[in-house]
């Protein structure tokens, strides 16, 4: 194999943008991110090194505008039939360099998708938020303030819990929503985001999906308090912290779509997030392959290159083989999302699509955790050395396995689909 891009992809699926975007993005990443990423860990709090890279990629290249319609200065991709595949390729390329940056960008799309994806389009909010993202060269972030202190994955477990456990409340007063609650851990919190999408309940304790509300809250609204970023094992480019909403008031039209439809539109995010997750992971693994390739070609066992020893080849062959498989599956997952509008596709919110995509994400996560760990071991005493980049990916990607409900929710949602379980 001559290049990491030869890892398999379903070639018939590639989106029109694929080649061009990869070229531009890759060049920028190799200039702006790769040379500095080994120093990102110490930059977790300040983002002094990280911010300029974000500005270049999100603002400079304009990726943060990609969803918005062209009439608002965006690229109009939310309306294309390849938005999932676009997101996949973007996240894979970015993930190759730094999964933290990748998730910060992808999550900026996240709350915006709730008002962009047919048939859940909210023109008024699009028009309102477009300038924030489209009329600047600086990076602008959004965040999805989902998780609450009392139960990590519960909110995403919509299929079963239907929002029953949400404690963040939205109360209608006149033409304003009044929001109270405490969220934690969202990507792009810790002071980064300018706009929050906030899943909340209009009737605490209710299992009626109509009482679920998705409301936008500008980060500078009165009553929004953000804590500083958490210190983590890795993923320094992604800040996470606490957010408190204390009688925060936003206009009534900041609710995405209204009773029932909010939950439907929000639920679509889950699969988008899972597809992006597989892309982060595959990108990181592809970079691991590049670094591993160098190591096994230049370091020896029995005075011959490591890769020429059959036993070592067995180990690294399995690692590369898994990457090949994960990339195929990631593209297939993206295609499942893009098939939603075809007569033969599954709707984004269907149990089938959610279950299948969760399954793929779960699988790819496990492969990534396993193979990055194994690659560290191939490097032996150089495995824990930051200069080889593999340990960075190993630390960074572990959280991808854990987020969005983690392994166990993936397992439950796929089991529920495949075996028609009723009480899981």
């Amino acid at each position: 194999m001559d290049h990491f891009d030869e890892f398999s992809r379903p070639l018939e699926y590639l989106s029109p943008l694929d080649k061009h975007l990869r070229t531009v993005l890759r060049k920028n990443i190799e200039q702006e991110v790769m040379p500095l990423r080994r120093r990102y860990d110490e930059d977790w709090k300040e983002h002094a090194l990280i911010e300029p890279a974000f500005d270049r990629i999100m603002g400079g290249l304009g990726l943060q505008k990609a969803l918005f319609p062209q009439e608002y200065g965006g690229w109009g991709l939310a309306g294309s039939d390849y938005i999932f595949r676009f997101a996949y390729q973007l996240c894979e390329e970015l993930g190759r360099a730094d999964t933290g940056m990748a998730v910060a960008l992808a999550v900026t799309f996240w709350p915006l998708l709730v008002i962009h994806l047919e048939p859940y389009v909210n023109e008024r909010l699009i028009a309102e938020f477009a300038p924030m993202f489209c009329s600047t060269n600086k990076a602008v972030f959004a965040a999805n303030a989902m998780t609450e202190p009392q139960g990590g994955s519960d909110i995403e477990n919509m299929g079963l819990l239907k929002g029953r456990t949400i404690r963040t409340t939205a109360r209608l007063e006149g033409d304003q929503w009044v929001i109270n609650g405490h969220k934690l851990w969202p990507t792009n919190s810790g002071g980064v985001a300018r706009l929050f999408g906030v899943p909340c309940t209009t009737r605490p304790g209710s299992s009626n999906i109509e009482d679920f509300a998705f409301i936008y809250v500008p980060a500078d609204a009165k009553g929004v308090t953000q804590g500083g970023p958490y210190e983590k094992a890795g993923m320094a480019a992604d800040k996470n912290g606490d957010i408190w909403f204390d009688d925060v008031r936003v206009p009534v039209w900041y609710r995405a779509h209204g009773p029932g439809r909010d939950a439907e539109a929000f639920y679509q995010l889950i699969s988008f997030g899972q597809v992006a997750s597989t892309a982060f992971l595959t990108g990181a693994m592809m970079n691991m392959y590049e670094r591993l390739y160098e190591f096994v070609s230049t370091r020896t066992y029995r005075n011959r290159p490591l890769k020429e020893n059959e036993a070592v080849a067995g180990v690294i062959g399995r690692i590369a083989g898994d990457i090949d498989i994960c990339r195929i599956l990631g593209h297939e997952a993206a295609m499942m999302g893009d098939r939603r509008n075809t007569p033969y596709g599954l709707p984004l919110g269907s149990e089938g699509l959610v279950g299948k995509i969760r399954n793929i994400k779960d699988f790819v996560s496990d492969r990534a955790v396993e193979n990055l760990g194994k690659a560290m071991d191939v490097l032996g005493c150089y495995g824990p050395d930051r200069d080889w980049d593999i340990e960075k990916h190993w630390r960074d990607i572990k959280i991808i396995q854990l987020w969005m409900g983690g392994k166990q929710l993936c397992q439950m949602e796929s089991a529920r689909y495949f075996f028609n379980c009723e009480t899981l």
Partner: protein
Amino acid sequence: MNRSLDYLFGTAVGDRGEDAQGVISLVRQWAEKEVIGNRLDYQRNYAVLFEEKARVLALSMGLQRLALPEGQGGFGWHDPGHVADVAAVLSEVGRADSSTGVLLAMNYALFSILTRFSEGRAGLVEAMTASYLDDELKIPSCALPGPGSMGRETPLYKGRSIPALVESRDSGPTLSGANIRPLAAGLRADLFLAVCADEKGRPCIALVPGDKPGIERGREVLTTGLNALANADISFVETEITRESLIQEPEAVPMLFTLLNLFLGGVSLGAGMNFFEILGDWSDSRVIRGSGPLKENPLCASVLADVAEEIACSRLLLHDLARLVSPSGRAWSLDTEGQYTYAVMIGARIQKGIMRAINRGMELMGSAGYAKEWHAEKHWRDVKTIQSLLCGVGAEAPVKMDTARCFYDCREI
């Protein structure tokens, strides 16, 4: 938890002398009081507090003297009869901090080897012992055979490249080798245990004081874990050592591997046990689906079970390994090669088992497992670091070759 760690994971009290029990209790108190009870401080101020707490343990409490010869002021735990106890002590240390554990493990391996091959080295043993009796934290650092580099053929130890060469000169043995990566602590080590090859390519161990002329240290290497033991590449530029400091006995290098696998197995096991406790606290207090505690969800319970099983089995295997190595507890009679094979095989398995336990447990803890605040992630990084270091190079392949060689008489692999 209702049941104590000692009940759940057994401390083999029957096999253990009172002395050993005493030391273990002492170390456990240190772990609880100095480190586990002050996790947040310890984390935020790691470099300083590591040093402070390690000094308490090693110097005030005397653990630095554990493997020193008895007649000279040590506890005498350097002989094979004590390996099980040493591993148990290191587990207690590992519960608190793996870096401290690795530091002591290298210390104990050093004196086990030194005293085992003390014949003709009385002066060296005495001097080394004396220096370890000082009120100063000693930092030994091991450099093992591992990856070689293309274009630089080296002598081999069971396939692994031996990074340094020793020449006999009139002035004494002289060591050369460039850019050698020690296991840990290379930056500040005051003694290197460097595996090197003599003129006939035979592996031996050189004990090289860190302040010898001709030792060059590279810049600090930033690493995944064991962060308190700052590492650096070292080069020996015609470094002269005394004849006594060169251990050429053929059993020395296999013994070093055997002891490191056993002792670092103990450290990682300890980290795993503390992770078990952290996870226990977490799964008690965490609620799932707005109702019962997480641990009552059967899927979560099965993850908890995986964690418990891996740790329990690793502990049993560690104890088995100690028995295989120790003449008193020896289950059956293995020669040095047999012991070596079991040590690297079980050693690798223990590291894998503990890593699996921590990786699985983190799945349940979600982001709490990833935040520094909960300390789970430190065990994860530290044990992974130990695992990678013990692999040598090529992941488990070299260990597999060792195993196949012993069990299936392979000759050319």
